């Protein structure tokens, strides 16, 4: 029983990370129809922001040594600035482009950011330990849960609640939901396109920074491609959740996290290496069964 609960907590904690990342991808997709491949690099930037830019092999802590509230804020601000610069330089001139063009442009951008990181910091992974206290396990009865997992789950739930409040109660949030539903109509009713898109990028960057720090805490190493895998999973989560639906993005993130963890445990030994094949096979099956995703939004429904 305890082990089943433990596996579930494992899955929920992994799923929380995916759900946050998926929200970041989904927010920008909702307003801009942009599949942002550079999102993974926003995540990477969040971690690299902690160390002094240098090509040395060992990481020299800079922001990483600050007390945690300052550390989180500083990292988030740096990622937000990077995201806004990217929007201004690349995506703003492409406002009228087709989704395929936007996607390839974001891929080009991702390529540039990754290689800029390689030039500045050098290509080798560097060990960066933050918040070692979180590695200690919390024991409840015969259940031992790493503190990091608890923190990940709590942070994710807190941010989800805050985001829901923001989207429902604040002016920007309402505008953003309107824009996600029908951008043209929202603009006609006085929504400022660039403000909404900018806000989406800022929130998405903030989520990227949080995901980055939680992930870094878990792996303890920064590398220039650390965000890529997370971004791909986040992107898939938004699609199986339902394009343009934020609830869907969260559902998709948790589904992949929990499903992946369960498969890891339940698959027989000799098939365990093939776990990702099963996860992605399941993605295909979900899409075939529900092409619009698990949560269908009004905007995604086919109109003739």
């Amino acid at each position, binding site marked *: 029983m305890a082990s089943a609960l433990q596996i579930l907590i494992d899955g929920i904690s992994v799923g929380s990370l995916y759900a946050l990342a998926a929200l970041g991808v989904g927010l920008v997709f909702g307003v801009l129809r942009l599949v942002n491949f550079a999102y993974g690099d926003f995540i990477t930037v969040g971690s690299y922001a902690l160390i002094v830019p240098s090509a040395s092999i060992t990481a020299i802590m800079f922001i990483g040594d600050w007390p945690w509230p300052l550390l989180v804020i500083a990292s988030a601000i740096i990622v937000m600035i990077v995201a806004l610069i990217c929007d201004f330089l690349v995506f703003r001139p492409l406002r009228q482009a087709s989704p*395929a063009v936007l996607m390839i442009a974001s*891929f080009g951008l991702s390529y540039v950011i990754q290689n800029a990181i390689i030039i500045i910091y050098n290509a080798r992974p560097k060990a960066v330990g933050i918040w070692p206290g979180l590695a200690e396990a919390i024991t409840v009865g015969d259940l031992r849960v790493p503190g990091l997992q608890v923190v990940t789950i709590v942070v994710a739930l807190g941010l989800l609640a805050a985001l829901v409040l923001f989207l429902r109660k604040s002016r920007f949030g309402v505008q953003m939901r309107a824009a996600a539903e029908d*951008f043209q109509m929202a603009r006609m009713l006085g929504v400022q396109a660039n403000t909404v898109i900018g806000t989406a990028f800022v929130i998405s960057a903030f989520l990227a920074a949080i995901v980055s720090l939680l992930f870094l805490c878990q792996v303890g190493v920064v590398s220039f491609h650390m965000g890529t895998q997370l971004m791909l999973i986040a992107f898939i989560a938004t*699609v199986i959740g339902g*394009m343009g639906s934020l609830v869907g993005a969260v559902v998709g993130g948790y589904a992949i996290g929990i499903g992946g963890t369960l498969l890891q445990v339940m698959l027989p030994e000799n098939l365990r290496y093939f776990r990702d094949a099963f996860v*992605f096979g399941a993605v295909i099956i979900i899409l075939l069964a529900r092409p619009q995703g698990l949560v269908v939004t009004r905007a995604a429904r086919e109109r*003739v």
Partner: protein
Amino acid sequence: MSRTMTLGSALRLHSTPIVLSLVLVLIALVATAFHSSSFDRTVVDLLIRVVFVVGLYIFIGNSGVVSFGHAAFMMIGAYATGWQDCCSMTKSFFMPGLPQFMLDTTVPPPIATFISGLFAAFFALLVGAAIMRLSGIAASIATFAMLVVVNVVYSNWDSVTAGTSTMTGIPAFTDRWVALLVAVFAIFVAYLYQISRFGLMLRTSREDEIAAKASGVDVIGQRLLAFILSAFFAGLAGSLYAHFLGTISVNAFYLDLTFITLAMLVVGGMNSLSGAVIGVVCISALVEILRQLERGIEIGSASIALPGGAQEIGLGIAMVLVLIFRQRGITGNQEITWPLSRAMEKPERTRDVDRAQTTSPPPPASRWRHQSKVIKQEG
């Protein structure tokens, strides 16, 4: 085409594949004249990329569905080649899981190449029958999921694929002329397909899926046909690649390949065959120039070299700039024809339609009505 058409006017009408092939022949001839082995490798690499990207174009360009999965077909083709003609002596040692008849036979390279293409096409038939029912971004994700599944299986199925280690000992068969021949073949097949009724039906569904269905087009079937054909060429490209390097490993056929080839297609112009070929030529040329600059050039007595990594950054920036200033790619989604000054098609008027695309949600299919005029002229 009317019967009274003379040979000359027929050639002029269908000059696109000829012009594109001549461009490639020219590149191959320059490589022959140069006698530089590194330049020669670049050119063979370029020609293999042309085969792959033209294959990619057959599906993406005609159907409008972006596929992230074609690298899987290339891998399937490359490994199928290894299974057929690799290292006859040590085959049973490296790949003990193969069926006995495959261990015993060694197929001559040209036949192996062809069979590899067919094998990839057959796999596309199996997978495509399911995922071609999807449209838009869901279809793209499904192809990506297929790529991951194939990659994971090939990485871990040690007894057949040598796992993540490299498979070596595939005979060198691909040289400049073989690659050129296959590239020209790919261009002609892609052209014939796109002006055939099947190609036109699929293009109709790209412009407006619902209208196409209403006109009696079997959208799923037509997509599947294009998917199979494009997988065939991706498989051929994989086989050429295996026969060129002599060694293959799964990592060569994953995200990097997917992205760089998609970038080539989009930068060239994803809705025209010329775009596919020109995109490969331009990006390959750019990469080569940047690589030379990175190595350093002599100007007078001073030597200038870009720092390492500048090549990738330069490529990324160039891609973004092309997309910002020419959103429909270098060719603007039009075909190159001879004589160059006499464009066969009027420019596509999609600017206002493009705007509707970003500022409102999918489905994209219903937003491209204006282009349908162009299709009729192509035939």
